[in-house]
């Protein structure tokens, strides 16, 4: 087990490093002219000393690999560089935007989970068949409506027409409900789809038939085994849902004009502030990888069937990112990762 954890941690670090390198190549190295553009921008004059500072900081007078090493060193010190437009440290900008986005995404995740649970249970246990089929068709519906459309409709009907929730972010919890519901509906789609499919599969298993044959009611069977077995794929999906939450928060924050990481991203994009954009990508990737790491580490405890014995040692299935540590490791037969074991009809963006 320790070996698995260490290996999995090593994978996570390697993936992060590779992802950073990719984002560096995409956003820093190729358009190295972003800083030059800024210096030569006639609209926003910059003093020669400041220009020299910028060039020295980004190492633009040095070869690419030195710039890369330098940026890696900065990164390890928690320094993400400076915004080209405002001159503020990127880490500070992201730090300021993060709490608002975290509040939004956590509430959205909660709403998404509740929606998924309600839809999943209704799709299988509702007393009327029309309700069951309606509930089954809700997740594909949710998945087909773009986030910005959901956001605009909620904003229009609940803020401007009914005046139930404030239309701008006034810092209250009430202002959070609109955007969080928007985002919650977005991630409820895959979660509910998985949950509905998983309940359907679990209900076919023999232990459920045995329970029912013994005279247990559907409710008892659900509570005793179906729920926990069907919740497992949903846990797996949580890791992937983080990516969707990040993407969704960009759109949601734009629609609701909420300050946060999403709006920071859109502003950075519109002003071509590449250091800020790169910082956002790095932070989002760290969050994404860490959550998936957590899911993979927790998973064997949730589902003991996933541990198996090989070469006399207890080994666990590989995680979401099967980044094996060397060619040696490749000789092992590749195990299905929890993510890949999801039901086939699940659609993840």
């Amino acid at each position, binding site marked *: 087990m320790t070996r698995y954890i260490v290996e999995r941690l090593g994978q996570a670090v390697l993936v992060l490093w590779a992802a950073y390198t990719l984002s560096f190549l995409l956003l820093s190295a190729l358009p190295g002219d972003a800083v030059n553009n800024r210096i030569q921008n006639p609209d926003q004059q910059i003093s020669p000393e400041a220009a020299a500072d910028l060039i020295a900081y980004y190492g633009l007078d040095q070869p690419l690999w030195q710039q890369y090493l330098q940026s890696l060193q900065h990164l390890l010190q928690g320094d993400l560089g400076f915004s080209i437009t405002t001159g503020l440290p990127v880490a500070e900008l992201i730090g300021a935007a993060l709490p608002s986005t975290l509040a939004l995404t956590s509430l959205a995740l909660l709403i998404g989970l509740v929606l998924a649970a309600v839809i999943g249970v209704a799709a299988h246990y509702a007393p009327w068949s029309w309700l069951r089929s309606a509930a089954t068709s809700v997740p594909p519906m949710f998945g087909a409506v773009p986030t910005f459309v959901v956001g*605009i409709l909620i904003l229009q009907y609940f803020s401007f027409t009914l005046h139930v929730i404030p239309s701008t972010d006034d810092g209250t919890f009430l202002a959070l409900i609109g955007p969080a519901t928007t985002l919650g509906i977005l991630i409820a789609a895959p979660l509910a789809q998985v949950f509905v499919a998983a309940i359907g599969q679990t209900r076919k298993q023999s232990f459920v038939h045995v329970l029912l044959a013994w005279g247990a009611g559907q409710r008892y069977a659900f509570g005793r085994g179906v729920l926990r077995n069907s919740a497992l794929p949903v846990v797996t999906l949580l890791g992937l849902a983080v990516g969707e939450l*990040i*993407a969704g928060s960009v759109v949601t924050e734009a629609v609701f004009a909420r300050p946060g990481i999403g709006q920071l991203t859109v502003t950075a994009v519109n002003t071509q502030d590449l250091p800020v954009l790169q910082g956002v990508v790095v932070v989002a990737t760290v969050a994404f990888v860490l959550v998936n790491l957590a899911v993979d580490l927790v998973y064997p405890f949730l589902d003991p069937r996933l541990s198996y014995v090989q070469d006399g040692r207890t080994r666990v299935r590989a995680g979401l990112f099967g980044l094996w540590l060397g060619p040696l490791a490749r000789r092992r037969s590749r195990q299905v990762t929890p993510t890949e074991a999801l039901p086939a*009809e699940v659609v993840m963006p």
Partner: protein
Amino acid sequence: MSTAVVEKTAAASSPTAVALHYLRRYWALGLASAVVLVALSWAVLPGVFTAYDPLAVNQAQRLLPPSGEHWFGTDLLGRDLYSRVVYGARASLAGAFLAVAVAVVVGSALGALAGWFGGVVDHVVMRAVDVVLSIPSFLLAISVVVLYSAKTGTSGLVPAAIAVGLTASAKFARLIRSEVLKVRASNYVEAAVTSGSSTSAILRRHVIPNALGPTISLAAVEVGLAIIWIASLSFLGLGAQPPDPEWGLLVADGRKYIATRDWLTVYPALTIVAVVLSVNYLARHLRKRNEL
């Protein structure tokens, strides 16, 4: 089994009953196909469906509500919204198809390379795919768009579509690789190798036909996603640029007047939802057929 029985009883009864039976069974499939067909015809021959020019400004007819003359009403500049939605189908669907085409081509090439050659090639390609999948894909797509606009100073539908396609190609690479591995281990490929077939012949005759089904199902799913993503990028100002009609852009435009003139938002939004819903339905149907 049960469907066969039902169909036999239906076939035994009157033609009306048969028709009703199929109607009941396949009405959703028919509706979805019809919506997709209409959207595709809009994209291919927009001129047939509307007499109005989507870019023609008409100050006398600003912000008219939907009527017999202007089915979806008119916008701030007096442009006919229905014709903008019809012409927008071309941008939105072409963007989505371009994205999926990029994803299929890049992803299949990488996946086939990794699966067929194995060893170091497989290792390098699949680790790269893992890294791409570890970056939240919407942010990756945004980064590619920004990179393009920083390089060229322009942004538009094509870079947005390519960005969406490139981020989706990792999924195709994984799929194709696993399909190739499956086929490679089969007896008939072994037989082909022993009887002296060339690698390219084996790829052409065995690997590609076998991988085609799953690829098409994934591609169908990805078309729906790509429509949403490209509309979202355009909505954020990163895709198609005004005054070009594009569905996401139309919603973004209409949004400013939603309080008093909600048709400007509602019709383009409903169009996106209907098309994506139909595409997704067809994709699910295709996948079910493939699994049988």
